[in-house]
């Protein structure tokens, strides 16, 4: 009985999505004409799930399924982010859906499954659940990314799939080594085993492998290559989904792994830092020569994931809170940018060439676009400035040893300015090019909402940063203060308090 009650109390959001996915599957089998009615059902279900997330009691840490499913403030927060991103994606996909009305139920179902995978991923507490959830997210993403059958998007999908399979094999290899060390796949048992056994080296290797494999989700090195192709070729809503929701899930599990499982392995922080540095450098440098805005968004998202990882690598509460803040703002900015691109996309992709003269023809759209890209570039009065500001601040407070690190991050954000400005400048070009735009109410909802949020949180960022501090504090017992100067990195790690 207790088991059932546990599930009913704790897993309501997931259950709703599960039921919704099954329902959509049946709708997809039964009819091809569900286009108009299915949208409201889908949004209703996601909204209901979101509400269920909100009403979860997050003050105490609770678990279900014998400890393999964790409900804490942190995980619920990431679930809310995932759900919000999925709702936005569904609003954003309006154009695609209108063009492919017959496959709407399948499309929504796969989105549901992906969101469900992400949600279970961030709250999984053993590697079996984590792996299955990860693959749920990945496999539905593979299918979604190949959803345009008319065009040559399959090669990109195949690359995505093969890269993903290799990444998951790498993760599994790391997990198998961890399993061999501890004899269990549960996070807490492995954590205890790492603490007691003197297998630091192999734990470091397996941690590196697991994190590298998870970087596939974040599109950072070593598995970043797929991102530009897939973002370019897949339906734009799916690109938005991949660059936001799937990344958020990846960040959620990486933060939890680093803070709960690999707590004692300080070397992983260095690995995270290295991953961050290399991927932001690669993303920004590749972005410099790019003309296609969708591919540019991919490079930008690689770089942004790099920034977030850079601040995670510091491992303090301050850095975690700024990372959480960055993730929230990243979501907002990206949805603003993607919805602008969706309005502009006429099927052949958006290039800087095709943006010319937009500011004179469609000032409102250009304004939204400018605010989104300026925010991504990190200019003041937009929210991106504050996320960068807190990021730099977290690095500064981590100690003067990290000043070269800070300089590198600063240099990178300077380089990034160039390609964001390339897009902005193209809009103010005097030569005008033909643009066909697509407006719909649902699309406008996302566009207006995210742009307003980008502006509003740019002016009043304090509630958001306070909230992200709370989130970081709740995960804090698992995070160790990074004491770079003393050299005593993680002598006294505190295991997570579990009731």
């Amino acid at each position, binding site marked *: 009985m207790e088991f059932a009650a546990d599930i009913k109390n704790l897993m309501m959001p997931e259950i709703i999505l599960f039921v919704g996915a099954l329902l959509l599957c049946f709708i997809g089998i039964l009819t091809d004409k569900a286009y108009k009615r299915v949208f409201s059902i889908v949004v209703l279900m996601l909204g209901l799930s979101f509400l269920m997330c909100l009403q979860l009691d997050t003050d105490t840490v609770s678990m279900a399924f014998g400890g393999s499913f964790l409900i804490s403030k942190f995980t619920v927060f990431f679930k809310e982010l995932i759900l919000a991103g999925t709702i936005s994606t569904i609003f954003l996909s309006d154009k695609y859906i209108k063009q492919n009305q017959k496959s709407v139920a399948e499309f929504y179902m796969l989105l549901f499954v992906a969101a469900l995978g992400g949600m279970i991923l961030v709250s999984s507490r053993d590697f079996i659940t984590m792996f299955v959830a990860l693959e749920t997210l990945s496999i539905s993403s593979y299918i979604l990314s190949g959803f345009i059958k008319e065009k040559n998007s*399959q090669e990109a999908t195949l690359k995505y799939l093969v890269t993903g399979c290799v990444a998951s094999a790498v993760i599994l*290899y790391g997990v198998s080594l961890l399993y061999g060390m501890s004899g269990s796949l549960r996070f807490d048992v492995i954590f205890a085993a790492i603490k007691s056994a003197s297998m630091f080296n192999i734990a470091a290797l397996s941690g590196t492998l697991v994190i590298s494999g998870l970087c596939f989700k974040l599109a950072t090195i070593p598995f970043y290559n797929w991102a530009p192709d897939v973002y370019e070729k897949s339906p734009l809503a799916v690109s938005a989904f991949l660059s936001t929701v799937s990344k958020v899930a990846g960040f959620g599990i990486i933060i939890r792994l680093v803070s709960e499982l690999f707590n004692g392995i300080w070397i992983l922080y260095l690995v995270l830092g290295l991953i961050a540095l290399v991927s932001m450098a690669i993303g920004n440098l590749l972005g410099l020569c790019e003309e296609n805005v969708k591919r540019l968004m991919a490079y930008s998202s690689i770089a942004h994931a790099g920034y977030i990882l850079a601040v995670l690598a510091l491992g303090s509460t301050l850095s975690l809170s700024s990372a959480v803040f960055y993730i929230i703002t990243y979501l907002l900015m990206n949805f603003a940018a993607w919805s602008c691109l969706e309005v502009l996309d006429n099927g052949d992709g958006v290039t800087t060439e095709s943006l010319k003269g937009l500011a004179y023809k469609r000032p409102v759209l250009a304004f939204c676009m400018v605010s989104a890209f300026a925010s991504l570039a990190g200019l003041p009065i937009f929210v991106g400035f504050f996320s960068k500001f807190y990021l730099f601040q977290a690095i500064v407070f981590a100690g003067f040893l990290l000043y070269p690190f800070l300089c590198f991050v600063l240099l990178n954000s300077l380089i990034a300015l160039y390609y964001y400005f390339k897009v902005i400048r193209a809009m103010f070009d005097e030569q005008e090019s033909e643009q066909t735009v697509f407006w719909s109410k649902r699309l406008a909802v996302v566009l207006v909402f995210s742009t307003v949020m980008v502006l509003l949180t740019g002016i009043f960022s304090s509630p958001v940063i306070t909230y992200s501090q709370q989130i970081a504090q709740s995960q804090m017992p698992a995070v160790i203060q990074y004491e770079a100067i003393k050299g005593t990195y993680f002598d006294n790690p505190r295991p997570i308090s579990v009731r």
Partner: protein
Amino acid sequence: MFDVTLIHYLFLSAVLFCVGLLGVIVSRHLLRVLISVEFMLNAVNINFVAFSNYNDLIRLDGHIMAIFVMAIGVCELAIGLAILILVFRKTHSVDADGEYIEEEKWS
């Protein structure tokens, strides 16, 4: 002869894993790429089962993980084949480095 211990299985799986990795890198046939991925997953399974046998015969977590890995590996393979067939329909080629992917030839 010698005593077969855990380490032999680990070496075997490491070799198989790397062969799979190599296969993904060097193959031009898409089918072979997918097969190589399966090699990698099989290598991981060997690891899990071997560890389970030497370390965890009580809870059998490794065995369970192996089952899940198999199921998901096959699922990935199936989706990969579906996409492969789709690619083949479009381009009449299953070349991983095919000209249809891009014009530029990089050596």
